[in-house]
């Protein structure tokens, strides 16, 4: 046994003080009475009680002595010592979405795992250190090397189970850091799966009788009349399910479905009367352990209409092209008045063989065979005869890559083009020989400028399929979709393109928070952590707003009723190594027992004293 606070033993000096008090108190207080006649007579009646009286006096004195000793001991903090018995635990708590699954009593796996950690902490010896690592999408320490049971409990109470995967790799890396410093560390992983090869890690599977039904996918296609929606559903046990479909909050159809355990089923909804929608949701009312995957939504991708102003004397090719685009509305104008007109109010300005004196600033600009060059560009003499259109190479931009993927250009030629010298702000996209003939640039306000150094009539390009692909890519470049997809998993990065002239980008999350993202780059990104429908909204400097919805779901791996954990291990240094630490002594305080004894002594002393004093 040892004393954690030996200074407390100085209180034992109160024992001689007590003895002195008893000696001093031995003096009798004078008290005058009418007569001592009866008092003297009472001595005869006291004789047979004398031994008990003496015993009570001694008992009182001994009680008080022992009480002083007990208080001194309590202050000195006595503890039983076990040499090398102290332990260190590194506890990894899986905080992935599947840990939210609840059993029939409403307890989640995460809560049970936290309780097991609390129980372990409570029964450890004094001196044992505990670290808890929360393994969510990003692993982090909840507590690090604490010997306080209450600190562990408070940290666990504040821990939140996420909606994504558990980053066990990072969690093990953190655990390794601690093991490097102490070779006698026990590493325990609290998760909801078994591990075949756990190495030197103990895996505690906290799964119980939970079961789960998940909607894992929802797609749609446009039919001759209406839409057809197809949902995939999988459950961990055989069960009958009700599955319903709602469009923009209105329930349109419901089905009864028999689901076989661990077998994906498909349910199809043919919505002939549905003409349009923003968000369609399929959901089930199953009373399973995880609610977040009981619904799946699909958001219709919207394409904003583009108003095109085509200024050309011979707009045939371009007009037909834009008319063929569903999202373009073209207005044709003659170039005669282009020096006098102030252009505005269009999303795309196409100047074919002409350039206005003042270029519009509220939309993207395409120039074909310009008569004057925009900034950072210079026109030179024409050069021409049958030059083949090629991709120049050496460009890694997204636009160039998209063109390279979609264009063939084996037959595209240009008979006459202007030789253009362009500055670094321009990106060359197509060339005739060594002369770039197609340039693109992003302006400061986010709009795009595309310059063709040749007239389309001087090329066979409009006759080839490459023409449509090229124009599509240029349109996509000039007018990028805010979102390329509308279906993402939790913690998956959602890229949001910044629209031209965008001043503000806000995202309303599934849990009704508003997130503001920067519009200074060409694209922003969001890492969603809540399941549900999000809405991204961009406001342009023209006052127009563009909206797009997207759905975020749980990672599919978390929807299924458990993965297996493999290849978990940490490297523990050799105990014999000189650099290795020796295990600490384990200490268990015994103050509680001393306190109990003190309490009993107080009761005894009080009882004897007050009984004596009637």
């Amino acid at each position: 046994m040892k004393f954690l606070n030996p200074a407390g033993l100085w209180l034992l000096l109160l024992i001689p003080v007590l003895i002195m008090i008893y000696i001093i108190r031995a003096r009798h207080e004078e008290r005058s009475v009418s007569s001592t006649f009866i008092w003297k007579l009472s001595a005869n009646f006291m004789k047979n009680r004398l031994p008990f009286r003496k015993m009570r006096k001694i008992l009182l004195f001994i009680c008080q002595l022992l009480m002083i000793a007990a208080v001194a001991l309590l202050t000195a903090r006595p503890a039983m010592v076990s040499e090398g018995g102290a332990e260190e635990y590194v506890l990894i708590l899986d905080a992935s979405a599947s840990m939210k699954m609840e059993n029939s009593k409403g307890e989640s796996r995460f809560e049970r795992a936290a309780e097991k950690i609390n129980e372990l902490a409570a029964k450890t010896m004094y001196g044992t250190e505990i670290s808890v690592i929360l393994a969510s999408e990003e692993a982090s320490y909840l507590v690090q090397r604490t010997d306080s049971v209450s600190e562990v409990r408070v940290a666990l109470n504040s821990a939140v189970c996420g909606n994504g995967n558990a980053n066990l790799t990072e969690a093990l890396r953190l655990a390794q850091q601690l093991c490097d410093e102490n070779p006698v560390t026990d590493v325990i992983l609290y998760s909801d799966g078994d591990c075949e090869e756990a190495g030197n890690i103990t895996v505690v599977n906290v799964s119980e009788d939970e079961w789960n039904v998940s909607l894992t996918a929802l797609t749609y296609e446009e039919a001759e009349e209406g839409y057809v929606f197809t949902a995939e559903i999988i459950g961990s046990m055989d069960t009958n399910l009700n599955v319903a479909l709602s469009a923009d909050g209105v329930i349109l159809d419901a089905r009864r479905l028999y689901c076989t355990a661990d077998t994906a089923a498909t349910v199809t909804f043919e919505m002939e009367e549905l003409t349009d929608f923003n968000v369609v949701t399929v959901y089930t009312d199953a009373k399973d352990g995880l609610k977040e995957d009981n619904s799946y939504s699909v958001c219709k991708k919207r394409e904003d209409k583009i108003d095109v102003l085509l200024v050309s004397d011979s707009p045939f090719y371009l007009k037909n092209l834009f008319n063929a685009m569903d999202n373009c509305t073209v207005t044709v104008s003659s170039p005669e008045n282009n020096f006098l007109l102030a252009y505005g109010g269009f999303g795309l300005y196409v100047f074919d063989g002409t350039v206005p004196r003042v270029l519009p600033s509220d939309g993207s600009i395409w120039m074909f065979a310009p008569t004057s060059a925009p900034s950072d560009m210079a026109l030179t003499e024409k050069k021409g005869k049958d030059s083949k259109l090629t991709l120049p190479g050496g460009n890694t931009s997204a636009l160039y890559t998209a063109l390279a993927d979609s264009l063939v250009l084996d037959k595209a030629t240009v008979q006459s083009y202007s030789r253009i010298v362009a500055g670094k702000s321009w990106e060359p996209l197509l060339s005739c020989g060594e002369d770039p003939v197609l340039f693109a640039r992003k302006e400061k306000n986010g709009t795009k400028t595309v310059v063709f150094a040749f007239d389309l009539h001087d090329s066979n390009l409009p006759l080839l399929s490459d023409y449509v692909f090229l124009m599509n890519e240029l349109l996509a470049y000039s007018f990028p979709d805010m979102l390329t997809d509308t279906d993402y998993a939790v913690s998956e990065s959602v890229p949001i393109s910044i629209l031209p002239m965008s001043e503000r980008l806000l995202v309303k999350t599934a849990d009704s928070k508003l997130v503001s993202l920067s519009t200074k780059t060409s694209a922003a990104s969001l890492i969603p952590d809540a399941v549900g429908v999000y809405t991204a909204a961009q406001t342009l400097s023209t006052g127009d707003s563009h909206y797009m919805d997207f759905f975020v779901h749980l990672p599919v791996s978390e929807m299924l009723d458990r993965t297996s954990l493999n290849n978990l291990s940490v490297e523990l240094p050799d105990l014999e190594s000189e650099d290795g630490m020796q295990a600490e002594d384990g200490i268990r305080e015994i103050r509680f027992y001393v306190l109990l004894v003190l309490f009993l002594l107080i009761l005894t002393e009080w009882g004897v004293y007050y009984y004596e004093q009637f």
Partner: protein
Amino acid sequence: MKKIVDGAFLSTLETLDLNVKQLMNGTFGGNRRSSSYGSSAEFADFREYTAGDDLRRIDWNIYGRFEKLFIKLYIDERQLHHRVYIDTSASMAYGEPEKSYAALRLAAALGFISVQAMDKVSFYALNEDECQDLCRTVMGKDAFYLAADRLNRVEFHGDTDLASSLMSCENPGKNDGITYIISDFFTESDWKGAVDWLLFKGRQVVLIQVLSRDEITPGMSGKLQLMDSEAIEEEDTRNFKMEVSRSTVKAYAEALEYYENDIRTFCSSRGVSFMTVCSDESIERIFFKKGLEAEVVK
């Protein structure tokens, strides 16, 4: 000093009379039946004529019938003389209210009841080994009030040897009244012998023990040196040390009960009335309950 007698006090006692248990001799002019025959008008009995009897008392009717000489006897109504002895030692000056006050009120009450019954009463203070006559024989209410005033001025101090002081009384009386001894009887003196002596003198004796509430139920505790109020010096053997606790108080109560039973046994064996009163009890309770129960009054 608080007056021991007031109007209310006296009015309470008007309905009471002393319980004279035996026929006694007294002087003429009282209301008590005497043990001797006298010349009053109330016929009592006959007896045979003996030489020397008054011839005028011969009842000739009886002679005519029985031809024997008998004389008539008449009740002799006499005045008794009661004596009240008050222990005036220091121990009687204790208590709240003081036992001395209770003792003097008792003495005054007994005196008033006596004079009301046309009897005489004397008051004596017992102190050391002396018996001091506090006032002359009291007859009639006027003299009683004077005596009450004298009682007011009695001082309680020192020690009292009950036996010596009682027996030093010059005129204790003989078969002519009740002797009341008011004390706490906390003494080693042979007062029982004095009582026997009074009984021999033909006195009807009544012992009244006066105790304070503290003496009945002591409320002290701890290590104490008990100083007897009648002890002169610190080394007096009556002073002693003890640790007062629950058990000692219990033993005290047993000792007190034992002592009182001893007195009671002594008294009952001699036909002596005995009662114990507490100094904080009212006169009404003392006389109308305890006094009646102990047959001290009627």
